[in-house]
C-alpha cells in the first residue's frame, strides 16, 4: 500500500500543530516549514470576539488537493498538509495550518508561501468576523475574480 504524502482536512476540531507536523515529518527530509493563521483580537480598531468559518467543503477539499499537486509540479516536496478549521474559532485560536517537508529548506519556504497565498485566493472558505458590536463577512484582498469581468 502506498504511504500517504498529502494531507488535506476541513474540521471543526481545534488544530494541533504537532500532530500536523508529525504527518509531514520524514527521515529523508531535512526541512519542515509551517504557517499557522490565528484569530487576531482587533481589526481596524474593532474588537474581534470570534470568527465563524463556513466552506463549500467538497470543492474546498478538491481545490486544496489540487493546490498541492500544483506545488509539487514546481518544488520537490516530500510531504504536505493543509488543515483548515470550520465553525467558531475563538480569538487566539488557529484557523489554518499549512506544513511542508522537503529535502532542502528553500523549497519548503516557497511551497508553504504558495499554498497559503493560493488558499487565500481561491478556496471556497468564508470567514464571518464577529465584533463586540456587529459582524461582517470578510473578503481576502487576494480573492480571485477571474472569469467575471
Amino acid at each position, binding site marked *: 500500500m502506498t504511504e500517504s504524502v498529502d494531507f488535506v482536512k476541513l474540521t471543526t476540531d481545534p488544530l494541533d500543530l504537532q500532530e500536523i507536523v508529525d504527518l509531514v515529518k520524514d527521515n529523508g527530509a531535512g526541512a519542515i516549514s509551517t504557517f499557522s493563521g490565528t484569530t487576531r483580537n482587533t481589526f481596524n480598531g474593532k474588537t474581534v470576539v470570534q470568527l465563524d468559518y463556513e466552506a463549500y467543503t467538497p470543492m474546498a477539499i478538491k481545490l486544496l488537493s489540487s493546490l498541492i499537486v500544483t506545488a509539487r509540479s514546481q518544488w520537490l516536496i516530500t510531504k504536505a498538509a493543509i488543515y483548515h478549521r470550520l465553525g467558531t474559532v475563538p480569538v487566539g485560536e488557529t*484557523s489554518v495550518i499549512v506544513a511542508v517537508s522537503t529535502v532542502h529548506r528553500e523549497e519548503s519556504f516557497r511551497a508553504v508561501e504558495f499554498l497559503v497565498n493560493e*488558499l487565500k485566493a481561491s478556496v471556497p472558505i*468564508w470567514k464571518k468576523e464577529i465584533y463586540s458590536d456587529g459582524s461582517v*463577512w470578510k473578503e481576502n484582498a487576494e480573492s480571485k*475574480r477571474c472569469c467575471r469581468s
Partner: protein
Amino acid sequence: MSDDNKITITVLYFASACDATGLSSESLTFPLPQMRICELEDKLKARHEKLKNILDICMFAVNKEYCGKDDIVKEGDEVAIIPPVSGG
C-alpha cells in the same frame, strides 16, 4: 428519462449569498436544453432581489470547478455561487 427541452439544476448559496436568499440551496428547472452562466445569473437576479449586488462580485462554480460567464450549464449540474473567499 429527462425531457430534452428542460433542465433541472441545483444552485448552492454560501456566506453572504446564503444570507441574501435565506437559502443554502435550491433546485431550479428551466424550459431550456442548456444555458450559459450569464443567463443563469440574470435569472437568479430576477428571482432574488437581494442577490443583485452580491452576484456582481461572486464567482460561479459548476460541479466544483470555477467557470466563466460563458460556460454552459447542463441537466443535473450543481452550480455554486461563490462570494469572495476569506479562508486562511
